């Protein structure tokens, strides 16, 4: 299993009222979207693994937003932040925080909705298409500018996922119960010593 991962280490604040951890599958790499994304002129797209890995740094610190109907993006409703991203297998996984106090309706929606009904959608800019004439566009370069939480059926990729995380730090999988450990600990750094810095890790996310 190949894993490429990046994370922004934020200081832990126990019981932070505005941080609700989430995790999700933002998209699949090297696999065509099930539907043509918006802006792709009716073409389905493949985000290549190389492009996704190269674009991982641009994803960190980007916001997650939502539209009231859970059917698309609304860049002015930024309800959370992405702090970790990795490509594991063909899944681009992300995790971060929702601003639970500011957007209680989002947390409420997540708790109310059935498991597996919520998905994610990326927003990219400056995407390079290898062959504009191809029926499926292959994206060989991109910059992530944000992501949205939405109903899975509204996502161009059917296999995306969004859910509240049980704990702040997740393992390589999307297990529902992950032992509570700080990400700074998994990287062997003292707590709070590397706040805000970009870290690169491979293999397991938590020790």
């Amino acid at each position, binding site marked *: 299993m190949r894993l490429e991962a990046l994370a922004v280490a934020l200081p832990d604040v126990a019981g932070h009222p505005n941080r609700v951890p989430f995790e999700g599958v933002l*998209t699949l790499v090297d696999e065509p*979207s099930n*539907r*043509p*994304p*918006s*802006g*792709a002129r009716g073409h389905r*797209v493949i985000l290549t693994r190389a492009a996704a890995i190269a674009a991982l740094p641009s994803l960190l610190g980007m916001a997650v937003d939502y539209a009231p109907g859970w*059917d*698309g*993006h609304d860049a002015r409703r930024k309800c959370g932040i992405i702090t970790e991203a990795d490509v594991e297998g063909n899944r681009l996984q992300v995790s971060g925080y929702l601003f639970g106090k500011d957007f209680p309706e989002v947390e409420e929606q997540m708790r109310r909705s059935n498991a597996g009904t919520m998905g994610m*959608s*990326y*927003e*990219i*800019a*400056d*995407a*390079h*298409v*290898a*062959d*504009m*004439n191809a029926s499926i566009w292959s*994206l060989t370069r*991109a910059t992530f*500018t944000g992501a*949205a939480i*939405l109903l899975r*059926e*509204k*996502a*161009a*990729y059917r296999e*995306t996922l969004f859910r509240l995380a049980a704990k702040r730090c997740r393992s390589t999988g999307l297990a529902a119960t992950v032992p509570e450990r700080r990400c700074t600990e998994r990287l062997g750094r003292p707590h709070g010593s590397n706040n805000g810095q970009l870290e690169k890790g491979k293999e397991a996310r938590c020790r």
Partner: protein
Amino acid sequence: MEGAMSESVEKLSAAVSLLERAIASLEQRDAAMSGDVQRIVAAVEHGAEISPRELELERKLAAAEQQIAELRAQGTRPAATRKTLPASTTQLLAKGGITSLESIDAGALDAALTGLSLEQRIAVKAQLMRAGALA
């Protein structure tokens, strides 16, 4: 001599011109083939959403695929055959000393059926084959 030189120069000049046009054409084609897109959002465009009918069909397809997978899995498993035989056949075999259908020896079976006519022997063997006791 000069005439030949002049002709060669003209030919070369024409070839260079052709090459330049070809390069320009290739560059144009390349630019048209690959390109940059300012913004892509991985959400289904409004108006292009999955209709309830499509959703229903997708659900049915998923269910059908699951059923096919299950049937395939069953097909790869050794069939649990029910070894039942008509009572008359069982009695005939018992008289010949065959009481279990789990391991019938071909020689023992032939010996057990020696008292029967050819048709009866064929009928018994056919029944055993149907029951899965005889390969």
